């Protein structure tokens, strides 16, 4: 790695960003949106039983590591992935890989990375970043959610890599082992990825995809008559907004990112229907943003009918998504 002018990329989402930068370093020009789309990473999951700080789990993308794995699988690239039983072994392996000029991806906790602003530091153990070098006791870090490269002291990075708890990474590190022998058949891969994503979004389960969105709408509707405190209701709506905008980066719970992928897909596959779908997805993304504004409005000035109105708005989004994913499923077949 040329340390002086490392081609750092500032991206919306950490995992797709890390993967894109890694692939580009190998001469495979795929931007973040392409990586995200090829990994069929868009989803919607609502698991009321699993609580995060007392709030139900809501996610707008596939679980951690699935982007890395799915992209490599699709492109036929071998990825070397390692976990470690002790922190010391983890550090030795990282230093060794860096000495071999490798560009190394790590899964870390957000909480222990000193360069994160305090409000963003919480116990999320599945953040992804790249290490491209080491100087004395500091690692040179390309963290995709920051504009510029960062530095992190050895001890702090060790703590972030080996933080315990849910999704604990056990020092997980990965780097690309080989280049694909032939340039990837992108058009075929894109069709496959869109088909898989449509299937995910249309799954016949109440907590996934379009049905999951409807379940959340129902849960919001119920708040109007719920015995929960006003404070809980506000925090619940705020939680949905945070999962969509703050955690589900890329804007509108990744809708803009996916729309960007569809736009590129239209060009690569010579399929105008994807361009149309991209425009529809953008419009749906805009509505997700309006939905977030409605939630915040309700937090600021709660009204009794407000919950019902938000639920109706969200159901409309779900309906449009269902239509869009059905047409995408047909086109990609």
């Amino acid at each position, binding site marked *: 790695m040329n340390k002086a002018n490392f081609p750092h990329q*500032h*991206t*919306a989402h950490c995992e797709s960003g890390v993967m894109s930068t890694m692939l580009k370093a190998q001469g495979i020009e795929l931007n973040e*949106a392409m990586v995200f789309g090829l990994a069929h990473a868009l989803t919607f999951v609502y698991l009321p039983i699993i*609580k995060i*700080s*007392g709030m139900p789990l809501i996610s707008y993308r596939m679980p951690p590591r699935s982007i890395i794995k799915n992209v490599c699988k699709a492109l036929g690239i071998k990825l070397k992935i390692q976990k470690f039983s002790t922190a010391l072994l983890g550090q030795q392996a990282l230093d060794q890989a860096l000495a071999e000029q490798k560009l190394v991806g790590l899964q870390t906790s957000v*909480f*222990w990375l000193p360069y994160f*602003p305090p*409000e*963003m*530091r*919480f*116990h999320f153990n599945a953040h992804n970043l790249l290490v491209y070098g080491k100087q004395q006791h500091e690692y040179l870090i390309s963290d995709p*959610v*920051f*504009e510029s490269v960062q530095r992190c002291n050895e001890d702090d990075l060790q*703590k972030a890599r080996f*933080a*315990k*708890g*849910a999704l*604990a990474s056990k020092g997980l590190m990965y780097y690309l082992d080989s280049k694909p022998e032939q340039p990837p058949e992108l058009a075929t891969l894109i069709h496959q990825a869109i088909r898989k994503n449509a299937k995910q979004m249309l799954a016949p389960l109440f907590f996934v995809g379009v049905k999951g969105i409807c379940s959340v709408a129902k849960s919001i509707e119920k708040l109007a008559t719920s015995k929960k405190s006003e*404070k809980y209701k*506000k*925090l619940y*709506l*705020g*939680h949905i*907004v*945070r999962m969509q*905008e*703050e955690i589900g*980066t*890329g*804007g*509108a719970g990744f809708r*803009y*990112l996916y*729309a*960007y992928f569809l*736009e590129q897909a239209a060009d690569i596959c010579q399929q105008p229907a994807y361009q149309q779908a*991209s*425009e529809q997805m*953008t419009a749906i*993304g*805009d509505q997700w*943003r309006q939905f*977030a*504004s409605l*939630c*915040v409005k309700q*937090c*600021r000035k709660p009204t009794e009918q407000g919950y019902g109105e938000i639920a109706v708005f969200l159901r409309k989004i779900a309906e449009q998504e269902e239509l869009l994913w059905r047409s995408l499923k047909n086109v990609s077949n």
Partner: protein
Amino acid sequence: MEIDDIPQDNSKTYHGHQKVIYATQNGQYQTATSSGWQDEAFATEQAVAELDAQTENALQAVKNGEKSVIYYLMYKYRYDETSLAQTTGLWKWQIRRHFRPEIFAKLPEKTLAKYREAFGCKLEINDE
């Protein structure tokens, strides 16, 4: 969303950082950045304010001798009973028990070390 419509609300929660957001210009997607969005900032600040209030309450409870310092540090370092249990490898009922000052006072060094590792600090009130 059009690039020109991206909110640039200079949110405090961004600490001067920019966030990447994809938006269109003349119908084509481009990479752009945002300095913040007030609706998103509201949700973040609301959540942080709630955590801060819980931390403050916990601090008072510790100072009043109702709870052990673990109770305060749990909030201060953004844990809840579930995540603290996962991190320390203790059971939730054990942690709840350790919230009692008289039980905490008798904890063996081995257990204290687990808490110290989870919090990354000494087990004392450090309200700076």
